[in-house]
């Protein structure tokens, strides 16, 4: 018979306690947040969101966004008050807040900003040729690489609307990832540079940890962002992921991370309660980018970077479906999915929102379970 010692159980008890605290706190101030969001008219608009024209989704116009603040603020405050530890929780909370800030700016610009557009490259070339001011012509020549980057980024999203444009978002996420990578490599210990290889052991990847952090933080944050399109989808899936990460970090002995993950789980329970269909609010970029970055960094802290695609399966699948759609469109001239990300494809095929969300949860839970199993070897 396996005997679990009290010493081993104590961190779990603490973690669950923090989770409960986060859950209760979030439940208490959620109605206030909803009221504020309505008052500030931070709601979902249909001008730049074609999916709101799907018959079943029309009711989503006018629903508050930035509901992710509920999780971000609850987690940040509780962690800073009760689990503030330089080696383990500075970085995850810092990354989460940086990404959430970027997402928040995007959400606010969607409401209060004005429409901006990108010049096509051909227009830039024309300006280089015909602009009456030689200084401006020179300026357009000097900034040509930037124009090229901007147009390339448009491939990823053709309808930037009022918010932060894709090229700006990618650049800011890169900066956030780079700051994190620098902090991790130069300020924290050797442990952060290890990666667990399933069924094998650990390898120290040295400075390679820096580009990998940037890559995973950017990719995962955007993946969660992409998955946040249906009521309950991102919230429920994140709940499953962070619950698994809580168990894993507890078993692996990362007490602070277990507490942090459990706090997120608690806040997510309250969030998902309000977010299931018909949602009282939606996560918005503030929540999805923040939690996506937090997910990536938490997996990195416990050395399970390799298993991130399993722990964040549904998010990765959603982002990959967008990439496949772009490749299919530009290379083959065809849509692979009726609409990307893939949850819209199923909705357009006649699946109800509830059916899509629940099936995605179930698939996600199964893959996360697999990830948990692999991580223990």
């Amino acid at each position, binding site marked *: 018979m396996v005997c679990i010692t009290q010493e081993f159980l104590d961190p779990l008890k603490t973690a669950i306690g923090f989770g409960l605290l986060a859950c209760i706190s979030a439940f208490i101030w959620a109605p206030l947040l909803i009221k504020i969001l309505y008052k500030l008219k931070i709601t979902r608009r249909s001008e730049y969101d*074609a999916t709101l024209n799907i018959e079943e989704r029309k009711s989503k116009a006018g629903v508050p966004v930035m509901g992710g603040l509920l999780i971000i603020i609850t987690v940040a405050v509780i962690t800073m008050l009760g689990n503030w530890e330089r080696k383990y929780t500075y970085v995850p909370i810092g990354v989460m807040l940086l990404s959430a800030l970027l997402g928040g700016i995007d959400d606010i610009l969607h409401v209060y900003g004005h429409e901006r557009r990108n010049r096509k490259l051909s227009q830039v070339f024309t300006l280089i040729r015909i602009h009456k001011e030689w200084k401006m012509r020179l300026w357009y020549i000097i900034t040509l690489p930037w124009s090229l980057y901007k147009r390339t980024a448009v491939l990823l999203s053709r309808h930037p609307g009022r918010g932060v444009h894709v090229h700006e978002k990618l650049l800011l996420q890169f900066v956030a990832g780079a700051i994190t990578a620098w902090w991790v490599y130069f300020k924290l210990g050797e442990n952060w540079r290890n990666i667990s290889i399933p069924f094998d052991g650990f390898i120290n990847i040295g400075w390679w940890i820096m580009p990998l952090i940037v890559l995973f933080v950017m990719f995962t944050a955007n993946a969660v962002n992409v998955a946040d399109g249906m009521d309950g989808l991102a919230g429920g899936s994140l709940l499953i992921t962070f619950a698994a990460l809580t168990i894993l970090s507890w078993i692996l002995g990362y007490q602070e991370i277990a507490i942090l993950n459990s706090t997120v789980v608690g806040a997510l329970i309250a969030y998902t309660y309000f977010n299931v269909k018909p949602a009282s609010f939606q996560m918005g970029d503030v929540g999805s980018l923040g939690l996506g970055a937090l997910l990536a960094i938490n997996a990195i802290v416990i050395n399970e970077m390799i298993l991130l695609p399993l722990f964040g399966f549904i998010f990765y699948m959603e982002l990959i479906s967008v990439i496949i759609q772009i490749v299919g469109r530009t*290379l083959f*001239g065809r849509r692979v999915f009726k*609409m990307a990300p893939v949850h819209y494809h199923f909705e357009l095929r006649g699946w109800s929102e509830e059916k899509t969300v629940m099936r995605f949860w179930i698939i996600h839970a199964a893959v996360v379970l697999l990830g948990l199993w692999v991580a223990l070897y």
Partner: protein
Amino acid sequence: MISTLSKNALDVINNYIHLPIPDHEVVCPYYNNRRSNIRAGLRSMIGKGTPTDIAEEVAIIALREKQDIKKMNNNSLKEFLVNNKLGIDCSGFYYHVMDAELHAQGLGSIREHLKFPFIKNPLRKLLTIFRPVEHAGVRTLSHEKNAVDIKISEVAPGDMITMINTGANHNFNHLLLIHAVDGEKNAPKTIHYTHSFSWSGDGPYGHGIKQGEIKITDLNKGILDQIWTEKGKTGAYNETYRHAQMSLEIKIKRLRALAQVS
């Protein structure tokens, strides 16, 4: 005796004539990307899509533009298609119908049989693997590497009537797909054709897939000396025939894949 294309190929033609959009009867419009010159676009948006591609794109664009297809009548839906540059050009139409025909005959995809002799750039050549229909224009389809000349007496379903350098300025090419032939072997009486085209009298929204026939009056004469009828019009009133007359080169061609079988 009438010989026709296979059922699969006829189904494709039928789907272009009645686009698979529920509760609507709409003929696929004519659209040629030459004027817009859209690069790297969806094939349904550059005149090269299948009927299904076009119907799906209609649904997606309607969603984006907050239009309710169910509330549109056939005319407004056709206008919607044209205004959103959805349609098919003559070679795209021929490509998809013949793809179905070759599949039905067990010859595989048309892509496997096509060569692209006008493409020299290696990168562009690579692109033909991914986007064959976009690169299969009239000149490519009728090139000697892809097709052989056919006498009028040998004409069969699947053959094409190609018009090179046609129009008032001899600046575009066109082709007709022969979908049925009436008559005995080596003695055709009537050629039935389908094509995607726009007559000047069609107005902005009347164009699209059309069908016509050519009555063979004398096998010893050329194709231009037979009686062409389309939309009940013959002679100079038949704009397709006028274009055939204006073309610098008009031929009946058969894909090599089919020529080898026959």
